[in-house]
């Protein structure tokens, strides 16, 4: 926040930093950010919930992000999602009960050249198929 001179317009920047550091935005951090930047809490909450990138729920130990962009969709991203949902037994946007894995979808990660693309624990893998995805996620539940 200091880097941005506690300017009010740095709210989104600050929230990005918070999420990067703590994994998600919780009530406490939102309160703190709102107070420090002197913006109403409702405003901070509004911004945090408006943008898809921010999450109020802590993510699991592993994350699987499936790109649902047009190119990926045409090349079978829907099937990948079904596969991942079946394997982790959660729906997109959820985290398993043991907090081991989260499944999220993205609008488009711009890796259409290697569609369908999936980001596993921050590492992008292109030309994904169901079998490969299953193998990559095998270790996640037991660990």
């Amino acid at each position, binding site marked *: 926040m200091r880097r941005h001179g506690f*300017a*009010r*317009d*740095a*709210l*989104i*920047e600050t*929230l*990005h930093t918070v999420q990067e550091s703590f994994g998600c935005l919780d009530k406490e951090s939102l309160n703190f950010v709102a107070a420090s930047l002197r*913006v109403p809490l409702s*405003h901070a909450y*509004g*911004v945090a919930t*408006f*943008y*898809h*990138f*921010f999450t109020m729920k802590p993510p699991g130990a592993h994350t699987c992000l499936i790109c*649902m*962009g*047009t*190119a*990926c*969709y*045409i*090349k079978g991203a829907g099937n990948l999602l079904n596969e991942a949902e079946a394997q982790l037994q959660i729906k997109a946007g959820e985290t398993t009960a043991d907090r081991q894995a989260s499944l999220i979808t*993205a*609008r*488009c*990660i*711009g*890796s*259409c*050249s*290697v*569609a369908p*693309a999936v980001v596993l624990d921050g590492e*992008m*893998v*292109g*030309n994904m198929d169901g079998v490969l995805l299953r193998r990559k996620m095998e270790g996640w539940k037991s660990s």
Partner: protein
Amino acid sequence: MTPEELEQIAIETRDKRKNLVRELNVCTAAGCLSLRSDSLKAALEEEVKKTGATCRVRGVGCMGLCSQGPLVAEHPTGVMYSKASSADAAEIVGNPRGPAVQKLVCSKQQPFFERQSFLVLENSGQIDPEKIEEYIAVGGYQSLVTALTEKQPNEIVQEVSKSGLRGRGGAGYPTGLKWGTVAKTAGTTKYLICNADEGDPGAFMDRSVLESDPHRVLEGMIIAGYAVGASRGFVYVRAEYPLAVKRLGIAIRDARKLGLLGSQICNTKFSFDLEVRIGGGAFVCGEETALIASIEGRRGTPRPRPPYPAQSGLWEMPTLINNVETYACIPSILRTGGDRFANIGTKKSKGTKVFALTGRVRNVGLIEVPMGVTLRQIIFEIGGGVPEGRKFKAVQTGGPSGGCIPEQFLDLPVDYESLKEVGSIMGSGGMIVMDDGACMVNVARYFMEFCMSESCGKCIPCRAGTAQMYELLTRITTGIATMRDLELLEELCEMVSSTSLCGLGQSAPNPVISTLRYFREEYIEHIEEKRCKAGVCECGVKQEVMA
């Protein structure tokens, strides 16, 4: 920084390269990185160190043919290796003429490379995007230095107007006119914004430009700042593009160090500085007024125009907003002159355009072609056609605001007007090829789902209309719709497009309208025969046929 100093850096960098016996250029843009080009590069470096070979390994930007990645280009022979992996590193370094490496050679004498003409992408894949001196070595920042030291701001605006450049974000507003408006608007504080919130699914041109040649965009922005009299600029980049953000950061830092950014650039009175702002993953923020709201730290909701941002934008000051590719055209226009640029292209659309060619096409990747080439040339010559013996069905341009263009228009010259005429738009440049395995109703539903969840919720036609249209399309794809639903859908299309507040809502029905226009029989098949020819939708009868 004086012109002489700039020239000195360019000569030094060029000389250093001239003495190289051999150089391996590995693509380190997002496409190849996801195919592990980083470990390939590390393996090559390791191998060179181990064997003491006289060879430099360098990371460069995107070379275009992303589906064949990771790509390695050899200098000075010009040989290109495709689909190389770390396991090939030893052979590539030690035995490049051996059979194992020869298998990887990818001919550059193929239509994919020969049919393109590079302007925005001229340095892409040629230079290391993280080194400012390499951009300078290929003539970078010359346009800026000349502009600042020899030209008046209004001369630059005139030159840009002469070039006929139109906004590359999709709408095609004449860039020179926009610059002129901002320049003429009274006010001491003006802002500049670069829209890098490339939200259209299936589009990655801006990402590639920022990852492969970030200085080009900076140079364009600084020149624009000088031309319109702005002193502060923002680059609004998607959070989904971490590599682009990183390289932009490096580029800004290096440009500041050399005095090309900051106060009193090139010892003139002109001061200009840039900041990167990271988006929050909202599609609507690609709309200019929503983007401005987002930079101000608010929810990204659009507001009615006028006033246009050129008059009252960021913090109610005159603001120039252009797309990444638009700024990237500027250095070339100033270097070779507006007339030269205006010679390329069609009557109303000048210059070249970068497209992201994806979907069911053999050569997936990033291409740049002059305006006015036909879709057939792009898809069948450069793209190599539809693979696996399938049949071409349609090409989708313009993302969720565009439409699907069927086979009968393949010979259409691509420009802003012609695409609009057939019910699509130029858009930012995503081109997704679909074969006969795609169901058009399902595609329309996919885009409607997109618009529905990306609607910011401010105006009712968009918020409620997209949801209703999505419901109707779902009814059709699941085989429970009636012809009355189709009528309702068409009515809603009309209503949403004419009454929504911003571009998102106004163009949301486009995918539906265009598929209805060319593939109406598919909708009717879904409704009356409960049949999906492509076998994508589960509308009841399909299962019986299968059984």
